[in-house]
């Protein structure tokens, strides 16, 4: 595994996305939504944390969608496990009246949600999703960059005073 994943192991449950990876992900998702003539595509990690989205996203609560997609994928994976049908890279296809919603496990850390018109051939979309998932995995295997400087304030800082102050500012009477 690349050294990026050494970093990840250290974070246990975490994932670190460096600037060049973020840009590459941005470009790939734009390509995918265009090629699939999709409504939108969303990338999240399997614990439910939203990473990026492209397409018609203005009316969609992407943060909630990321957490729900992760929940859906996790439940589906457990169903597969319990019923003896487990395999890596699980795919869920939801057929709506206007759109297919496809949720696909990208390696062990990420998931992709793509919504496309039901007029687009499903077989084609499945192939496309798998291709792009493979490309996304490669991006995350790329070596880390020297981005430590970005964190220097955080690493040296006394965080408690900031956290307390921010919460005090946000908290109302209800």
């Amino acid at each position, binding site marked *: 595994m690349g050294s990026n994943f050494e970093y990840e192991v250290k974070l246990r449950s*975490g994932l670190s996305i460096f600037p060049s990876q*973020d840009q590459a992900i941005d470009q790939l998702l734009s390509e995918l939504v265009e090629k699939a003539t999709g409504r939108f595509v969303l990338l999240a990690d399997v614990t*439910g944390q939203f990473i990026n989205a492209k397409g018609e996203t203005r009316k969609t609560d992407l*943060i909630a969608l990321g957490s729900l997609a992760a*929940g859906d994928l996790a439940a589906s994976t457990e169903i597969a496990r319990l019923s003896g049908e487990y395999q890596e890279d699980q795919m869920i296809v939801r057929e709506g009246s206007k759109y297919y919603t496809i949720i696909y496990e990208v390696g062990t850390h990420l998931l992709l949600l793509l919504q496309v018109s039901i007029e687009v051939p499903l077989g084609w979309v499945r192939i496309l999703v798998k291709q792009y998932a493979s490309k996304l995995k490669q991006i995350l295997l790329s070596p880390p960059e020297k981005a430590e400087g970005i964190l220097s304030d*955080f690493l040296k800082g006394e965080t408690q005073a900031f*956290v307390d102050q921010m919460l005090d500012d946000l908290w109302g009477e209800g």
Partner: protein
Amino acid sequence: MLLNWRSRELQLKIVYYGPALSGKTTNLKQIYSRVDPAHRSEMVSLQTKDDRTLYFDFLQLELGKICGLKPLVQLYTVPGQSYYEVTRRLVLRGVDGIVFIADSEQSKLNENYQAWQEMFAFLKDMDLPADEIGIVVQYNKRDIPNAVAIPEMKRLLGDSKYPGFEAIAVQGVGVYETFRAILNLTVQRVQRILQN
């Protein structure tokens, strides 16, 4: 935890864990109602018809900036009923901090104990050492007439070394203090991990 170096966003996952009807969703509802809407998402609840948590509740908060990083805090609850064991385990995936909500009612002591043991068993199974995760305990429902004394509840939870807070979550009492404690613990833990 998810760290985006370009946007300087640090996403943290905090899970409210505990036995059925101990007040996990109530805590989230209180946070939702008290935080400025400009700094929080809508609350998502996957519930049964009788308003019991089926899968999880979810809420995200944006906290401004801490020493150059922008933390986004995702709050989850788990379903408390015993038969949702698999679901609780799934929600714990990738957790950075846990608030254990203990029910102060005498009749719930055993359920507190079971949930506490189960939580640590899940963390162990997932190779998430408890000492690498921020954990705080909230002793909820302190207003009920037969509330169990705090020392007894602490003893039940193995003389808990984790910070504890008394609460009446339904009135909002203790909710803020608990949340502030878990957030501080979680941020400090992340800071320590990144320093190493």
